[in-house]
């Protein structure tokens, strides 16, 4: 691309100025200071890339009037013409591109013409003054190469981008840094890890605590068992001790019993029974003696009355016999009369005649007997009345029945009856005879007389007989009593014998001795029983007592007390230990409950996950910045590797030319950010070691390299320089002019200078150079 004409409507002190045609490939604008060289450079930049901000150093107002802006006529590689017109406005001012045929094109076409170079690329590589050339020197250090290459690539924003990316990455994570989010989060995660470790340790503690609790419970129950055993032992020992006195007593009584003679058996209540029997016997004997006395007395008294009583008995006997005789006489009389009657009755029957006479006779006879009996009195009276009554009855009967008996049977009957009555009468007579004989009397009348006499005897002997009988009865009673008493005594004596037998004694004296011994033994045995009972109340019977006894036999009361004391001591120790265990169990249980109910670990884990996620998110963010950096770095390295040779080669060729062979090559080590120049002898110098002029020559050479590279790859843009030779010596200035001439073969070169020597250098290097003289008020085309 070539600039053919500049039409300035208003820019700085230019107003309505036309500069052109710039037909040569190399144009030198020459003019004094303030002629407007720098203004024109700014004009070109403003028209091609837009007006800068008013605050920009390159901002140039339209001081001399005219519309702020203007036109530049261009031609491309193929000499097609364009007019680029721009006036000040928003976004750098609107641009209009007009083709030679009048068609309009947009900013895109302009960008194409400019090879998509940015204003920065243009300013740094293609259009520069001494300031820009020198300012490269200030870009030494890490940014130099990227700046240079960036400039070459059209993005010198690379270092800033790199810087910002590095800064942003460093704000997240910086190796060795402490205050960025990543180390901060790491710290937090590690803190939480520590807390979680504690929680995990808690879980491990839980198991051991559970074990500990079980152990404590076991220990506690073991101690309780021990307490129980000790209490049992203690109670037992107390029993032994309480039994001790009884035991001693038991032993003593047993010894005593052993010493006492043996009394196998002895009747119960022997002594009292003995005494009772003895007194019974004594009493009985006393009674017997008394009764015997009374008996003798009664017997003697009865003996005294004996004759009277005998008389009385005889009299009674005689009277009885007499009475019998009298009765017998009566019966003889009656039976005689009956026999007579019957005979008479028989005789009547024989006369066929019934006679009531017999009945009447009998009746009268009966009556007579009765009177007779009354007269005689006593037994006779009764016999008389009886016989009289009987005769009277027979008589009455006969009177009433007389009529019924008749005929022959009756007669026979009557005869048998008469015969029977006669027989009876005869027997009665004989009986009477016997009585009389016995009485020694002969006459019945004597009987009656004797009866009176006997009655008198009876009367006189009656009292004696009664007394006699009384004494006899008394004696009889006494005898009976005597027999009773004697029987009692015998009975008692028998019992006494038996009792003595039971007591294994021959007499009461021995019995009493044995009784005393027995009682003593009994007493001992009773005490023994009492003691044993008390002891067995403690031990229980049988086996229990056997064991207790065994134990008591072997026990030592002092040792017993010692053991009791030891047990009490141990018990109080255990009590303390149990209390301690109880306390420990409580705290262990509480700790277990706390662990079981502790859910803070879940929160910690959630927090940990959150922190890790935050860490990862930051890592991703950091990764973005770091990768962006790495990508830029990688791209830059490749750029350096692939594009550097051409840039550097061109640059070092130009440097060698400019410096007249003083510096023959330029080196840009891959890992270093610094450029070094090499002298023919191999000595290397860094830019800051070079003189100002040489340093500017190095940077200029580098720009030539980039210009060539850019032109080769992209577009051949005009190279516009503003008085850059001022620090060059004439020889190097000339050489530089030659270099520009060489470049002008590919790229249009426009040089602004106020130094005639510079014009001369260019003229010398290229005789056909177009020189434009700039006057302060107007440009003159020569």
């Amino acid at each position, binding site marked *: 691309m070539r600039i053919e004409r500049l039409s300035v409507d208003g820019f700085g002190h230019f107003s309505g100025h036309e500069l052109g045609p710039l037909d040569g490939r190399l144009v030198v604008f020459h003019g004094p200071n303030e002629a407007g060289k720098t203004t024109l450079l700014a004009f070109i930049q403003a028209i091609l890339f837009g007006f800068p901000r008013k605050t920009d150093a390159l901002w140039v107002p339209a001081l001399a009037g005219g519309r702020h802006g203007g036109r530049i006529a261009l031609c491309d590689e193929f000499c097609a013409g364009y007019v680029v017109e721009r006036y000040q406005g928003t976004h750098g001012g609107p641009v209009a591109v007009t083709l030679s045929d009048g068609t309009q094109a947009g900013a895109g076409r302009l960008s194409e013409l400019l090879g*998509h170079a*940015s204003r*920065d690329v243009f300013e740094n590589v293609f259009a520069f003054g001494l300031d820009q050339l020198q300012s490269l020197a200030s870009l030494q250090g890490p940014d130099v190469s990227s700046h240079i290459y*960036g400039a070459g*690539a*059209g*993005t010198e*924003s*690379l270092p*800033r*981008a790199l810087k*910002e*990316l590095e800064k942003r990455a460093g704000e997240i994570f910086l190796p060795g840094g402490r205050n960025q989010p990543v180390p901060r989060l*790491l710290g937090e995660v*590690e803190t939480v890890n520590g807390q*979680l470790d504690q*929680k*995990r340790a*808690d*879980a*491990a503690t*839980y*198991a051991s605590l*559970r*074990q500990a609790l*079980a152990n404590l419970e076991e220990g506690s129950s073991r101690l309780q068992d021990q307490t129980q055993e000790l209490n049992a032992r203690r109670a037992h020992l107390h029993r032994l001790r309480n039994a001790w006195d009884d035991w001693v007593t038991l032993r003593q009584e047993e010894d005593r019993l052993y010493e006492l003679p043996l009394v196998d058996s002895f009747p119960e209540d022997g002594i009292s029974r003995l005494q009772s029997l003895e007194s019974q016997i004594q009493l009985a004997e006393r009674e017997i003696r008394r009764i015997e006395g009374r008996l003798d007395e009664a017997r003697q008294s009865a003996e005294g009355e004996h004759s009277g009583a005998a008389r009385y008995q005889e009299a009674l006997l005689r009277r009885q016999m007499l009475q019998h005789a009298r009765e017998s006489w009566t019966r003889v009389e009656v039976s005689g009369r009956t026999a007579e009657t019957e005979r008479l009755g028989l005789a009547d029957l024989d006369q066929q005649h019934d006679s009531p006479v017999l009945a009447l006779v009998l009746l009268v006879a009966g009556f007579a007997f009765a009177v007779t009996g009354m007269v005689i009195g006593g037994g006779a009276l009764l016999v008389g009345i009886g016989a009289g009554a009987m005769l009277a009855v027979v008589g009455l009967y006969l009177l009433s029945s007389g009529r019924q008996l008749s005929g022959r049977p009756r007669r026979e009957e009557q005869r048998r009856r008469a015969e029977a009555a006669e027989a009876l009468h005869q027997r009665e007579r004989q009986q009477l005879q016997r009585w009389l004989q016995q009485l020694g009397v002969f006459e019945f009348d004597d009987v009656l007389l004797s009866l009176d006499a006997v009655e008198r005897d009876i009367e006189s002997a009656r009292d004696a007989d009664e007394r006699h009988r009384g004494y006899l009865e008394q004696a009889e009673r006494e005898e009976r009593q005597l027999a009773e008493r004697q029987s009692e005594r015998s009975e008692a004596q028998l019992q006494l014998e038996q009792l003595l037998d039971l007591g294994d004694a021959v007499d009461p004296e021995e019995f009493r001795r044995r009784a005393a011994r027995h009682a003593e033994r009994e007493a001992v045995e009773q005490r023994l029983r009492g003691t044993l009972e008390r002891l067995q109340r403690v031990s229980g019977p049988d086996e229990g007592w056997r064991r207790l006894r065994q134990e008591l036999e072997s026990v030592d009361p002092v040792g017993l007390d010692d053991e009791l004391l030891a047990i009490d001591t141990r018990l109080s120790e255990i009590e303390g230990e149990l209390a301690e265990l109880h306390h420990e169990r409580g705290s262990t249980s509480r700790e277990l409950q706390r662990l*079981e109910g*502790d*859910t803070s*670990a*879940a*929160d910690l*884990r*959630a927090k*940990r*996950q*959150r922190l*890790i*996620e*935050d*860490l*990862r*998110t930051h*890592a*991703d963010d950091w*990764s*973005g910045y*770091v*990768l*962006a*950096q*790495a*990508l*830029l770095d*990688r*791209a830059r390295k*490749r*750029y350096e590797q692939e594009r550097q040779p051409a840039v550097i080669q061109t640059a070092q060729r130009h440097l060698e030319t400019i410096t007249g062979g003083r510096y023959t090559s330029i080196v840009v080590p891959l890992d270093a950010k610094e450029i070094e120049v090499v002298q023919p002898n191999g000595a290397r110098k860094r830019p800051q070691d070079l003189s100002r002029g040489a340093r500017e020559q190095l940077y200029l050479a580098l720009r030539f390299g980039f210009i060539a590279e850019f032109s080769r*790859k*992209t577009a051949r843009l005009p190279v516009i320089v503003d008085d850059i030779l001022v620090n060059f010596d004439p020889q190097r200035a000339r050489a530089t002019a030659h270099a520009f001439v060489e470049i002008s073969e590919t790229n249009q070169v426009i040089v602004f200078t106020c130094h005639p020597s510079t014009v001369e250098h260019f003229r010398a290097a290229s005789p056909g150079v177009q020189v434009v003289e700039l006057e302060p008020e107007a440009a003159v085309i020569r």
Partner: protein
Amino acid sequence: MSETLRFVHAADLHLDSPFQGIKNTAPEHIASELREATFRAYDGIIDLCIERGVQALLIAGDVFDSADRSLNAQLRFIQGLERLHVSGIQSFVCHGNHDPMDGWTARLAFPESCHRFGPEIGAAPLGPDGQATVYGISYPQRNVVHDLTPDFQRRANDGFAIGLLHANVGLTAHESYAPCSLESLTRTGIDYWALGHVHNRAILNRSNPAVVYPGNTQGRHPNETGARGVYVVDVDTNDHPAIDFVPVSTVRWETAGICISELHTEQDLIDSLANVAEGLLHNSDRCSVVCRVELTGRGPQHTTLRRDGTLDALRSEINNHLSARSPFLWCERIVDRTGPEIDRAERRQAEDFLGDVLKMIDELQADPEERAEFIQTALGPLYSHSRARQYFEGHDPDAAGLLANAENRILARMLEIA
């Protein structure tokens, strides 16, 4: 088998384990809901067992994370088993890599009706009449890397034979614990393989034998989205199992993506986020939702999103609206993967440094090996950091995404500065 058999098959309870992938602090009511979520799911299983009158609950390992040594988890686990015991429901438990036998606190008493399998293969009758037999084995310690299935051999009078095992069937992304194959499972003659370990439910084989992963009971990770639960298995008189999924999780993880290319204003962005969030909550079967939203694409809102605090503000907008509801939706994070609104293909063509950078990124993306090495080298200082590296285990951000993110940052800066 004379009677029908019904049991619940669960696995990977991970009781008391925290939700992962959450970097923001949730409001207390949500935090407590998340903290309790694994327990609620477990309680839900116990309730389900009782309601459905099953004969047994089978748990195929990873009851809790023994690395956490959570007493709470262990105690509440046993409480649940006690509830089953009281209801006359048997329980069978084997332990896996996260809760190996050596990770359990000693001296915890399991109810009588719970059969815990030991480190050797064991068999236990299921049901009063031994309708079924459960075989099982537990990991004695975390690392069991050999196939345990050859130890399982059914016997003639087993009834319906069930194998309870924490294992990895086939080659999956999961860490290979007790690796085995469908063939080795089939050889055992077991009728139903009640497996655990894989967190996403899967029925690898419906019958002869049934090979079933119920998945975990509560999603705890952004990748564990959707309903989580257990299988209720009804075995008919022909020994044919009917396998029915029943969700028990109370909180669901969900993820959603939004492309910003058509969103012109910030309000469009807010509306779009609100719609997506409402949609997630609406389709959650009355479960609460923890969600992550990813913004992708190129568009004008990229610059809005790049402003510090924008993402948090958007998140608050959603959460203010939905996190107080019951069930709630809580947006855990909004991830920005958007790019600037440029024609990348065109920018790539430019013969300049930026063009070179874009071209180089494309070259790297095309060569995963080179890319991996490049990323590893660049991120080494942090990812190999002695204190930090342990926290990045398992955190493998997608490499392409990382580069794309870096590119967006480069573009943002280079273009902005330019």
